[in-house]
């Protein structure tokens, strides 16, 4: 059932130091990229709405660890974390936000429509829940081709309220599709709290199980917990071809669609945000690593600086392109 614990994964035991270092870097890349996005937003050269992922980094970093290059990932409007954790080129992402032709979606999609087939991201829909069906269909394709890839789908708690969720999980369960549903439960859907959307006691894992999809709930702010579940589950999906759901409980720090924090708004208190910030996934891992002498404070600072320099350089490059070169290179309208 939902709360079962897995044995320590092989990777965790053998290569713990390298493993944790890599996860830390991934989370820092997401965090620093998005902090820079927030900082640069007022300058006006980032030309699209952004849904920031800050606070949820452990989920993308933990899950994507065990996905292979040939696996598929379906993301959603809050896509930066998944894209970066899949090794997506940050320069192309920044260019996309700036509406440039060199962006990952040719400057047409913006932040909400990420396309990176080299990372298994075959296109992104911003309509909540619809990606669940797309990713499930990729799973159907994998199964029909008799491949042993995995289709991982990131969805929010809001998306579990859409018909897509029930219809897709039912089909994946019926056809035993190799699909991993990752529900990032941040308890918020735009400015609506889960308590105002679901009766108390409704359990996303139990819904999945009632549709025949095995599930587990993990601490989405603990990358080790996420990764541990992901390793076992992804292996199981690959070997047995069956769907699985991981519910990762986490929290979004920034506004729903905003480059900024949204202190003082009605749907949540500053206290709540502060409490979750104490559970920062990056701080949690960094503290663990320094306390276990896996990493020194100096090395941590050094890693941060390297990533910061990389990200700064990316945004400098984008800023230098004086005018957006986005061109709609669409085929002419059919008539």
């Amino acid at each position: 059932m939902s709360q079962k614990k897995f044995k320590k994964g092989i990777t965790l035991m053998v290569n713990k130091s390298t493993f944790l270092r890599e996860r830390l870097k991934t989370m820092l890349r997401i965090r620093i990229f998005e902090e820079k996005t927030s900082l640069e937003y007022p300058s006006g050269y980032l030309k699209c709405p952004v849904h920031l992922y800050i606070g949820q980094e452990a989920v993308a970093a933990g899950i994507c660890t065990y996905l292979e290059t040939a696996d598929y990932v379906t993301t959603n409007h809050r896509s930066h974390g998944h894209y970066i954790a899949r090794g997506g080129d940050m320069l192309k992402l920044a260019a996309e936000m700036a509406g440039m032709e060199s962006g990952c979606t040719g400057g047409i999609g913006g932040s909400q429509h990420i396309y990176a087939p080299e990372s298994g991201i075959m296109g992104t829909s911003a309509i909540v829940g619809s990606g669940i069906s797309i990713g499930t269909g990729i799973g159907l394709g994998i199964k029909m081709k008799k491949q042993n890839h995995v289709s991982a789908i990131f969805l929010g708690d809001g998306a579990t309220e859409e018909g897509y969720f029930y219809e897709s999980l039912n089909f994946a369960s019926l056809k035993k599709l190799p699909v991993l549903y990752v529900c990032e439960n941040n308890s918020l859907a735009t400015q609506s709290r889960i308590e105002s959307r679901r009766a108390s006691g409704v359990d996303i894992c139990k819904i999945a199980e009632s549709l025949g999809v095995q599930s587990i709930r993990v601490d989405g702010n603990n990358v080790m917990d996420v990764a541990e579940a992901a390793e076992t589950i992804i292996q199981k999906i690959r070997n047995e071809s069956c769907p699985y759901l991981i519910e990762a409980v986490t929290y979004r720090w920034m506004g729903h669609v905003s480059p900024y924090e949204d202190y003082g708004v009605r749907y949540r208190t500053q206290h709540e945000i502060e409490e979750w910030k104490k559970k920062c996934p990056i701080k949690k891992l960094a503290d663990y690593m320094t306390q276990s002498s896996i990493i020194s404070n100096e090395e941590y600072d050094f890693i941060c600086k390297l990533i910061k320099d990389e990200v700064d350089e990316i945004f400098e490059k984008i800023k230098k392109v004086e005018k957006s070169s986005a061109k709609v290179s669409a085929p002419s309208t059919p008539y």
Partner: protein
Amino acid sequence: MTREITYSEAILEATTQLMEGHPEVYLIGEGVDDFNGLWGSTKGLYEKFGDQRVLDIPISENALTGIAAGSALVGFRPIFTHQRIDFMLMCMDALFNNIAKWQAMTGYKQNMPFTARGIVGRGWGQSVQHAQSFYPVFAHFPGVKVVAPYSPYEAKGLLTAAVLAEEPVIVIEARSLYSKKGCVPEDFYTLDFGKGEILRDGSDVTIAGLSYILEDLLSASDLLKDKGISAEVINLRSIKPFDMDILIESVSKTGNLVIADITWDCFNLASELSCRVNEQLFTEIKRPPLRLTLPEMYVGASRESEENYYMSAESIAKKIFCWLDQPMQKRQALQ
């Protein structure tokens, strides 16, 4: 070799040849594996190709449409069949927030080979929901092609072209045409999108239409002939893209345009094309185009209700005759 087969046999033959020649083509939809095979159009395919390529589905049209689209992203060419087109309204999000926009949302880098077959149920006692043909809803969206085959020859050629296209195509089939026979080549062939066809040459009036209404138009043109009026009958065939050239050429010759439609009065192909012909031939046409459409109401189940609601060859001929009888002056171009 060409021989006479029915409309439904032509659809079956197209599907069979596609599935034999293209392993990536598969059939999906409610009841596609039925013993009576959607009035013969999928008959025997389950026995021939098995449940991996002829997929019956849960009653979840929207998610399954998204799932079929997901499979298209990894190389498949689904044919999604709706035995009643009415259920396509259940799929509007998957079809038009996603499938129609997928190419745009990926910077026009990702193809979306997706075919939907929707069968218009107009016939005996189908009543309010099951007799409708709301194709304009589909044709409104950029990124989707919509065709409406009239003859068995078109049914085969257009379905084949649809499935081999790299973008989504919706095929509007008419249940009332399923048993009609026509000459169809045995060989594999495709028909071009955006091309209409002159069914009968004439010099006094151009009468254009699509799908099942063409039978009535041909009969009406016989009645008009008895009154000394020579009508040119055009099968529009392709709703989007539509064939302006064939209309312009014909109306330039006849000076009169009638467009008969299979749906309600507002926002349909008859309105769209009469507007466009008016724009292009403003000073050449002898009178404003005549649109023959269904009333802005729903048909009832009784025979009387159907007789009052639908046009007949006689009522069409009478309307056209009266319309042509009114003297009109050519309009003058603005100075």
